[in-house]
């Protein structure tokens, strides 16, 4: 492992992706909980006119200049979205859709105007939106570390306020918090994180980095603190893991590998996270179903016993029991379950009868049903 990380490229890429994962995992948790999952997608489209204008004004393709342009446009887009949502009946998703497509359209128009200039230096301007994770530079990582640490520090300082406006904004306002200001601050942090990621690792990876770690982390815990920590952790794991994988296997692009690692984390979390996981849910449902089925067979057996004056020695054919349920349920499995619980017993080949405990249980159930009727 240490040999692996001795390589400069892997070290830079893994460090950068890990940092980005940590920051966007933490900030993304808030975004996801506040239904802003698609903000990353929107900002990355909205950055295009910012990049075009920054280039028009400075005639420079320096990353800092373009990043500032992108950040400004992204921030304006976010404000536009917030304005539309608070001042009209258009919901968040609609506002995002409008703002992202209109900003991008504006960017397109600006690019066509730029294309007309007899100036070869504007080439590939829009490729700045598609940064590549494998081409991270030491300076990028340094910038990410500084800005990321700043963003996390703000998050830590305003933690309880951010938490309150996310779960119950009106109550926040009622106790006197400046909700709009806090809202803008939290969203701005996210914009910063997204824009850094944008030109280094690209649009799609950034969209995934914001949502996926949070979505995975949410399944494992019901507390905000652990969730944010876990999301940051997932972000790091996927970032570093994807980087390592893409440096072991040739022609495995780093960004998509990280996205797929994140998606895998989400999938696994959805399936097996304790309490919420789908696998557990299915297991519980199956258990419940088996219990209900066994109870039904138990009652059937009791009904048959009644026909024989509650003679518990008299065995009944499994086929009869199956016929009573019209093949709807697995009678054999239910009988075996009852036998295991000592409620029924096998009296002969394919014949079954209730035990004394089974009879008591059946009576109990009938009483219970009577109470509810």
């Amino acid at each position: 492992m240490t040999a692996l990380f001795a390589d400069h490229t892997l070290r830079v890429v893994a460090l950068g992706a890990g940092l980005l994962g940590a920051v966007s995992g933490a900030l993304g948790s808030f975004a996801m909980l506040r239904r802003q999952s698609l903000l990353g997608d929107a900002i990355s489209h909205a950055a295009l006119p910012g990049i075009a204008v920054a280039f028009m004004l400075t005639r420079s393709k320096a990353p800092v200049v373009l990043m500032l342009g992108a950040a400004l446009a992204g921030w304006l887009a976010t404000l536009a979205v917030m304005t539309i949502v608070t001042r009209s009946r258009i919901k968040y998703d609609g506002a995002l859709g409008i703002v992202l497509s209109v900003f991008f359209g504006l960017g397109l128009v600006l690019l066509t105007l730029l294309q007309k200039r007899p100036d070869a230096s504007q080439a590939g301007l829009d490729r700045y939106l598609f940064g590549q994770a494998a081409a991270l530079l030491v300076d990028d990582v340094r910038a990410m570390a500084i800005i990321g640490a700043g963003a996390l520090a703000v998050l830590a300082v305003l933690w309880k306020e951010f938490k309150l406006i996310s779960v119950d904004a009106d109550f926040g306002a009622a106790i006197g918090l400046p909700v709009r200001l806090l809202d803008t601050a939290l969203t701005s942090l996210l914009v910063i994180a997204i824009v850094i990621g944008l030109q280094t690792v690209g649009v799609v990876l950034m969209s995934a980095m914001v949502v996926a770690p949070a979505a995975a982390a949410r399944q494992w815990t019901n507390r905000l603190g652990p969730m944010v920590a876990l999301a940051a952790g997932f972000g790091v794991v996927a970032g570093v893991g994807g980087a390592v994988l893409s440096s072991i296997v040739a022609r495995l692009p780093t960004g998509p590998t990280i996205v797929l690692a994140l998606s895998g984390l989400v999938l696994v979390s959805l399936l097996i996270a304790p309490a919420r996981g789908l696998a557990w849910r299915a297991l519980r449902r199956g258990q419940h179903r088996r219990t209900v089925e066994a109870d039904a067979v138990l009652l059937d057996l009791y009904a048959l016993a009644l026909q024989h004056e509650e003679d518990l020695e008299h065995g009944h054919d499994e086929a009869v029991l199956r016929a009573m349920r019209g093949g709807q349920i697995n009678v054999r499995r239910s009988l075996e379950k009852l036998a295991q619980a000592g409620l029924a017993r096998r009296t002969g080949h394919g014949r079954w009868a209730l035990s004394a405990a089974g009879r008591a249980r059946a009576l109990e159930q009938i009483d219970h049903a009577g109470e509810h009727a």
Partner: protein
Amino acid sequence: MIFGAANLFSGPAGSAALRGWRAAVGVAVAVTVGCSGDEVGPTERLPAVATTTIVADLVREIGGPDVSVVSLMGPGIDPHLFKPSEGDIARMSRAAIVFYSGLHLEGKMTEVFERMRQLGRPTVPLAECVPVDKRLTAAGFSGVYDPHVWFDVGLWKHAASCVSEALSEHDPRHADAYRERGRRYLERLDALEAAVRRRIEQVPAQRRVLVTAHDAFAYFGRAYGIEVRGLLGVSTAAEAGAADVQELADFITERRIPAMFVESSVPERYVQALREAVESRGWQVSIGGTLFSDALGDPQTPAGSYIGTVRHNVETIVAALSEPSGAGHER
């Protein structure tokens, strides 16, 4: 109804638009009346459209004063990322003949040109003038070819012949002139090719390696015996992996390659990342300069023409690679 909508724009601010509108109607009439080049009057120049600056340059050279060439893509425009504007409709409508690169370089536009050809409008794909057996196929997909044929000057001669043939056919009145200019241009290309070979030979054989960000120089490499290594594929959607960067960095270090090159249409960061990786391996590689890959340079500069661009690229490459041991050296 559409006309009604158009008239809405005839207010004070819309008068320019209205003028444009009238011009457009005029053009439309002209197009329906005189669609093919045969009907161009004796004193008029044949209106031609070219997609990339490279194609436009070739058509200008051979068409000379008899053809007016409009290039859809300006200097520096990566054909993969070209965005047409409204004026391109009129430019296309006006054209008696369209020259494009083809082999899917222009993406969806290629299909449009093919369909136009089926309807009898002359559209000429220059890269497809290169015989199939001389084309490079893309990574195992038969029938899908690398479109960047122009950096093999020998192959570009096929394109030049194609242009003079096509012009002669569609504008027979100037056929002699086109053939004559074509012949002379071919001579210039011959001279260019000889010069390129001479210059390349000055680079020590083991250093004849061209490292760039993307795979546009495969034909160039094959023609002049230069090994070409790129970080990205042709597709703008493709992405490099960390292993690709490491591999290329190892290669540069092992071969003691002194310089890498930046392309005008690809952000520099890819090459910079590579340089950092190489540096960490104890070798210093310089960035040898900017190469023009899919588009020519600024019109006023020497790199504004195809021949000038090839010279620029070759001089840049030779200068950087043959530097004794100044830029690239072990630390």
